């Protein structure tokens, strides 16, 4: 059978890939995508722990349901903001959006 640690390794790798994406992606939507990757990594974690550590309680899986719900909400908000940015800045490249500094 597949031990718990493999799942955790998978989620850790996905989490780091997402993180790398957030650091390097220039377009806001790119960052959004990477965030989704990180979120999925966490969900895997939750479900894996639910199965191995607390097999008879459903807390883990229910948590994932809620995280997906929240992910949906935050994507809606994120995209609304990105559209507003595009409307004002005419670009969604994050390193060009720095009117405010120091």
């Amino acid at each position, binding site marked *: 059978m597949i031990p718990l640690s493999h799942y955790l390794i998978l989620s850790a790798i996905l989490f780091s890939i997402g993180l790398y994406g957030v*650091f390097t992606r220039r377009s806001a939507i790119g960052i959004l995508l990477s965030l989704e990757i990180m979120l999925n990594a966490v969900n895997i974690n939750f479900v894996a722990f639910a199965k191995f550590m607390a097999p008879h309680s459903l807390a883990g899986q229910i948590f994932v349901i809620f995280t997906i719900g929240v992910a949906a909400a935050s994507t809606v908000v994120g995209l609304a903001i990105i559209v507003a940015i595009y409307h004002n800045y005419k670009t969604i490249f*994050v*390193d060009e*959006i*720095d*009117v405010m*500094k*120091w």
Partner: protein
Amino acid sequence: MVNYAYLIPLFPLAAFVVNVFWGRRLKSKSAPVAILAMLGSLVISCLILKEVISGKTLEQSIEWFKVGRYSFEAGFLVDSLSAMMLCVVTLVGLLVEVYSIGYMHGDARYHLFFAYLSLFIFSMLGLVLSNNLIQTYIFWELVGVCSYLLISFWFEKKSAADAGKKAFITNRIGDAGFFLGLSTLFYYLGTANFAQISQRLAHHPEGLSQGVLALSAVLIFCGAVGKSAQFPLHVWLPDAMEGPTPVSALIHAATMVAAGVYLVARSYAVFAAGHLSLEVVSYIGIITSFMAGSIALVQTDIKRILAYSTVSQLGYMMIALGTGGYSAGVFHLMTHAFFKALLFLCAGSVIHACGVQDIRQMGGLFGKMKVTATTCLIGCLAISGVPPLSGFWSKDEILVSVYNSGNMVLYGLTLTVAFMTAFYMFRLLFLTFFGKPREKLHIHKPAPTMDWPLIILAIFSIFSGFVGSPLMGHAFSNFIYFHPEHIEPNYMVMVSSIIVGLAGITLAWVFYILSPGIPAALARNFSPVYNLLLNKYWIDEIYDRFIIRPFLRLTKFAFSFDRYLIDGAVNLTGTSCVAVSRVKGWIDKYIVDGLVNLIALMVGALGEVFRRLQTGLIQNYILLIFTGVIAIVILLRFV
């Protein structure tokens, strides 16, 4: 009558208050107010003197204030010494005030003059009456202030203002020493009262070593040096001649300068206990008198000559006190008060009459000013120690005490000073009153009110000597003494002093009447000595270069030190200036303002670093966060 002694200083104080507040309205009537007050004090003083002669002394004091276990009291002590001084001060004060009516006639601040004069006499009387060192110190400084006010009376003249300032500061230096001596005594003996001091010194208390006693005596003497213009601090007296002449007569001849001698006399117990201190007094005395005497030989300003002669005579008194001649010193103090006041007032009349102070421009005034000339002659005779005038007796007493002290060098020097005194006094006399008038001077007769005081003083100069002379059985020394001593007249000393006096007079006669060319010739071939004396041993210049100028430079340095160093180290306001570079002017002031901004600079620079961190790029932020997280994890893994 003795217990009314406290009234004596109150009269002049009342006069002062009247003259200050209502003087403007009194106009010329402010003089009689002062004179009346002075008369009152004189009468009481004489009555008290009569009672004191009959053996009655009194000390009364009330508690001024109490701090911890020390109680400071204020009170008055009437004994032979103070009674004598009271009479001298009030008498001379009265005569000077009468004289001033004429002299100060028409001055804009006429009433103020008499107000300051009464204030001075009040503080002098207070000083003489006080029964403890602290009260003496208080009146001591008051006297200093009055002399400052009177010297710079004609303050429009810059020289007068400078002279006043110089006098006050020099006195202040002396007073600092006096204060230290006072506090040492107070610390070790627990009291400042003269009687208790001598009592406690008698059964020499533990803890008070000889060294400390001598030190406190010298410190008190330091106050006397400042006030009586002895050697290191004598520079202020010649400049004090800037003040009106009656002021010089009263203050710089009779009373204030004598206060130093009075103080040494009053606290003689302290001096006597410490054996070293008396030597110091006499050495300072001899140096001062010899130096001042020599300077007076070549001076040309009439008042400067008399000033240096006063300094020299005070040196004389110090020598007397130094060599144990307690009553001799005090006796000379009294007689000197009379004839020196007389000489100053004569000089005043001369200046008042011909408006000029340089004796080389005067000459042949005998014919025009008979009274002034004759009284001046009497004064000169008295001071030169020509018998039977008072000067002879008191100087003789001093010479005897110096002779008895066994120090022959000292005796020799004192004799030469006597010779010099006789010489320069008669030089002054011949140049001003005899010989041909050198310049066309318009002379207007001095007013009668200026002549009468001269005559009275002349009489006193003649007869005041007999009190202490053998003819009246040394009445004076039996009256005022530290411990009863029997002096038998030493005829050899008496003869030598007469010879010396006459020699001085004849030499002056030869130099200035017989052949006026000699002094100029002498001056030429002894020019270095002549210049040395003319420039008053360059003491003023030395003081200026080695003390005053470096001192001022030090204050400038202290101020710049203050602004740049300390101010720089603490001041925080420079912070914003580093970041806000636009306001250029503002920054120069802060950067210039110094080290305090250093901290401000660092704080500002640090602020700048954090500010730059805020790049505005979202990804830098997220990157920084996770580096932070990683750093924390690493840090705590290993800590």
